[in-house]
């Protein structure tokens, strides 16, 4: 707990106040922001050491380190905000390496004038996400940029974890015959964001799927299935992540469109904007590639977990020197599922 005597004349105005340049200048204002906002919210003994870095106990096993910068507009969206997103994103990157995440570090770039009330909401959301995940935020940093030079808040998080003994997961380990599993519906996060974009605004009960996946990953590892690849299909969506795996593994992937779960309202929103859910971002889904004989068992383990209720076997790895991802469409035809070209933009034609 934070038992230091307050050294500030007035407490931070977390209702009306705004981020000032001084909050990043290293002086008293910055110390106050860290004390009254970050340290209070994140509250753990490592952070309470109050040093430039966190001194951590020795870890038992191979370390996994992952880092992710988070920018999102709008900062608050249905189902989450940049705060919990920045925690989940990095935890998931560590988890899909087959590791148990242990610690997080967070660095903030704040724009001058950003409301402290919004910052408080974001920080508390991060703290809540970290606490739920059981992974403390042990160190961090804050900088402030002049008004107009940022987009409110940018958050970069770094995660450290320990890889499970004897487990090696890698994008180049997919082998012909392996099955491809997906933990749930696709496109929810991207369409939740899109629905609030200026100019496109539509009303739809779409909620971001942002979630920490390491619990699900642990259950999947526990079952002893012969897992080869785990990935979380974020930006660029399912299609892009599968193409990365296919290229790394020099194999093809063959999908069955009808097996890929999509929420009807997400499908409808995509239809409106001329988007393909295969390319829309997710923040709480994973792709697993495992030996064929273990696929059904792995699927039932996923089904038993709250984040895998709609998991499905969506395809298989095939021999193909070109590394194409192909799909049998609902109609029974076949097509290539290519990489995303540029940013996904709505279409009218």
């Amino acid at each position, binding site marked *: 707990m934070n038992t230091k005597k307050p050294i500030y004349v007035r407490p931070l105005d977390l209702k009306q106040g705004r981020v000032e340049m001084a909050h990043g200048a290293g002086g008293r204002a910055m110390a106050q922001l860290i004390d009254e906002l970050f340290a209070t919210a994140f509250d753990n003994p490592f952070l309470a050491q109050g040093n430039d870095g966190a001194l951590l106990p020795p870890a038992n096993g191979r370390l996994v380190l992952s880092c992710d910068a988070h920018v999102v507009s709008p900062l608050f969206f249905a189902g989450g905000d940049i705060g919990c997103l920045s925690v989940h994103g990095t935890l998931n990157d560590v988890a899909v390496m087959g590791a148990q995440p242990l610690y997080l570090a967070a660095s903030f770039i704040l724009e001058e004038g950003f409301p402290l009330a919004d910052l408080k909401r974001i920080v508390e959301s991060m703290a809540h996400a970290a606490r739920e995940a059981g992974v403390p935020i042990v160190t961090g940093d804050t900088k402030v940029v002049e008004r107009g030079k940022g987009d409110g808040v940018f958050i970069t998080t770094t995660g450290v974890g320990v890889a499970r003994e004897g487990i090696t997961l890698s994008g180049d380990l997919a082998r012909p015959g392996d099955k491809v599993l997906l933990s749930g519906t696709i496109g929810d996060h991207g369409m939740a964001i899109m629905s609030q974009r200026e100019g496109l605004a539509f*009303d*739809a*009960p779409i909620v971001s799927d942002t979630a920490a996946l390491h619990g699900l990953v642990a259950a999947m590892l526990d079952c002893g299935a012969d897992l080869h690849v785990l990935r979380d299909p974020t930006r660029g969506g399912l299609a892009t992540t599968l193409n990365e795996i296919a290229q790394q593994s020099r194999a093809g992937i063959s999908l069955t469109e009808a097996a890929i779960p999509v929420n009807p*309202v997400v*499908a*409808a929103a995509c239809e*409106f904007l*001329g988007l393909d859910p295969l390319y829309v971002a997710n923040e709480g889904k994973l792709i697993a590639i495992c030996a064929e004989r273990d696929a059904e068992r792995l699927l039932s383990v996923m089904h038993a977990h709250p984040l895998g209720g709609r998991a499905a076997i969506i395809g298989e790895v095939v021999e193909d020197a070109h590394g194409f991802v192909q799909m049998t469409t609902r109609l029974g035809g076949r097509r290539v599922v290519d990489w995303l070209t540029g940013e996904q933009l709505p279409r*009218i034609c």
Partner: protein
Amino acid sequence: MCLAIPALVVELLPADMARIDLDGVRKDISLSLVEDVAVGDYVIVHVGYALQKLDPQEAAETLALFAELGKAA
């Protein structure tokens, strides 16, 4: 191509606008290119405008024709 999709009119709004629904997605669109649209109609929506009313009778007939092809084959 011109991306357009049939959607259900759920509410008529002032200024020749209407609220439409497509499987839970709701949006306000303009009715200035069509006539006699009522709540419950399906309209074909393109860039925020209804282009045409969808004829449910004709849709049913087209689908019946597809089904017929199956039997005949």
